């Protein structure tokens, strides 16, 4: 019987962008068990967000810098349900376009991060070069690269001009061939395939048990996507959407879901651009909400859930947010059983672990 040694992997580790700790039990190089410790980044956001529901539109974007617009979209959706206010199709479609732009930046970051964890520095730089173009695009449209601050309860804080819409159209037209080229690289590159195929398999039954969402779930054959429920602009007549999913459940499948969704996002942006009409972009609300509301959006990492309970004043009675990383990260324990130590970093990174979201 070989000796089992326990080694720490993180919280400070070169392959993690944020602090997370894995306690790995190893038999020589083989992982036989893992414990995941989070909480290094806990900031008490749920308490802070309940203090003033109007300011929280901006505060909730600060939960995470990679899916900030999805946070504010889910939050305003919850409050719009509490206010029972209808948002115009124009505002919904612009929200959809910006959410898909942020999905592009997030997926390209995750794919680049995976390439870096595999030691593929050149591919990492290629992903980040294309990501930068999308970052500059959202900067031109919203005025910010990370926190767009475009949402407000009932619609948008400011309208998007015709020139900005044309700018989005031009940029995605230019970017699509580059994305297709990157897709071809990770589909066909033998190094990438050998390092990712059959590694870190999350079985479908485990995926259901861990309640995983987003590309992690869709990489294990669960075709669940909140965009199918038709929130924001996804429910506007004329928008067509089918979730991308793979059955294999390995690192390769999770990354291919992201890569295919990059191409799909370009298509969704074009669909939304074609459906935008001249309409009011804001339906203002009055008074304070007194009801409960739920907001669910498909963030880049999966379903993002906001629950709001209002009590007729500025302060909220309760706000709860469940981020996709909170349910995806524990599933790493199921993926790395039996893996080699050298594969732990690509497996953990393939989940796209966002500790800011997870700890809040």
């Amino acid at each position, binding site marked *: 019987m070989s000796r089992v040694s326990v080694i720490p992997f993180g919280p400070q580790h070169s392959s993690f962008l944020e602090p997370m700790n894995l306690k790995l039990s190893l038999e020589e190089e083989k992982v036989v068990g893992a414990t995941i410790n989070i909480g290094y980044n806990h900031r008490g956001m749920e308490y802070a967000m309940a203090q003033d529901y109007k300011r929280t539109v901006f505060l909730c974007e600060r939960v995470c810098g990679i899916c900030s617009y999805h946070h504010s979209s889910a939050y305003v959706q919850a409050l719009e349900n509490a206010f029972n206010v209808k948002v115009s199709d124009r505002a919904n479609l612009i929200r959809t376009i910006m959410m898909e732009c942020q999905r592009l930046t997030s997926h390209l970051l995750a794919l680049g991060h995976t390439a870096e964890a595999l030691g593929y520095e050149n591919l990492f730089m290629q992903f980040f070069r294309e990501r930068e173009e999308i970052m500059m695009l959202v900067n031109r449209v919203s005025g910010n690269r990370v926190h767009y601050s475009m949402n407000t309860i009932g619609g948008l804080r400011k309208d998007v001009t015709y020139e900005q819409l044309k700018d989005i159209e031009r940029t995605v037209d230019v970017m699509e061939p580059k994305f297709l080229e990157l897709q071809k690289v990770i589909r066909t590159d033998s190094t990438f395939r050998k390092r990712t195929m059959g590694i870190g398999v999350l079985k479908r039954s485990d995926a259901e048990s861990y309640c995983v969402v987003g590309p992690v779930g869709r990489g294990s054959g669960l075709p669940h996507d909140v965009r199918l429920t038709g929130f924001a602009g996804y429910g506007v007549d004329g928008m067509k959407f089918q979730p991308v999913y793979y059955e294999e459940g390995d690192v390769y499948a999770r990354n291919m879901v992201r890569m295919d969704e990059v191409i799909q996002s370009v298509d969704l942006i074009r669909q939304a651009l074609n459906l935008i009409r001249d309409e009011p972009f804001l339906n203002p609300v009055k008074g304070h909400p007194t009801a409960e509301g739920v907001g669910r959006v498909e963030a880049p990492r999966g379903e993002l859930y906001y629950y709001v309970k209002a009590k007729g004043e500025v302060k909220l009675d309760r706000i*709860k947010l469940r981020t996709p990383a909170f*349910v995806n990260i*524990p599933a790493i324990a199921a993926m790395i059983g039996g893996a080699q130590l050298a594969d732990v970093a690509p497996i953990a990174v393939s989940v796209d672990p966002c500790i800011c979201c997870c700890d809040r």
Partner: protein
Amino acid sequence: MTDEIKSKEPKPVNDIKSKVDRMTLKFPRPRLITIIANDNADGTFELIYAFHYNNQYTEVRYTVMADDELDSLSPYYAGAVNMEREIVDMMGLHFKGIEGGMLLTPEKGIVTPLRKPLKPKESKPSLPAPIPVQATENASEVKP
């Protein structure tokens, strides 16, 4: 939003395990989205189990006491462990076999930060106290 919120009325007993069993009879097993605990500030808590079930958003609600030992959903969902550990940290509720210490270190720092102070109990309305009448000795000297 196309989803609907069901089962608004809170139920008195935490029978979440049998509820999940009953839900699984008709359709595939529901996906647990999250568990929410609301402090009612009167010694009771509202537990909301949010599911994605039969392509719809579904809620199951219970009202529990602060010192109740609650059934854990971890035998059904491995992902429920962290959700329950978070409630243990933030609200101080007790789930069978679940320990806190995930987001907070209770022995060193803040304990149950999302609990609210108890509301004062409402007493029966009593007769208004008589208003004391003060004699104004120099009333004539008061100038407007």
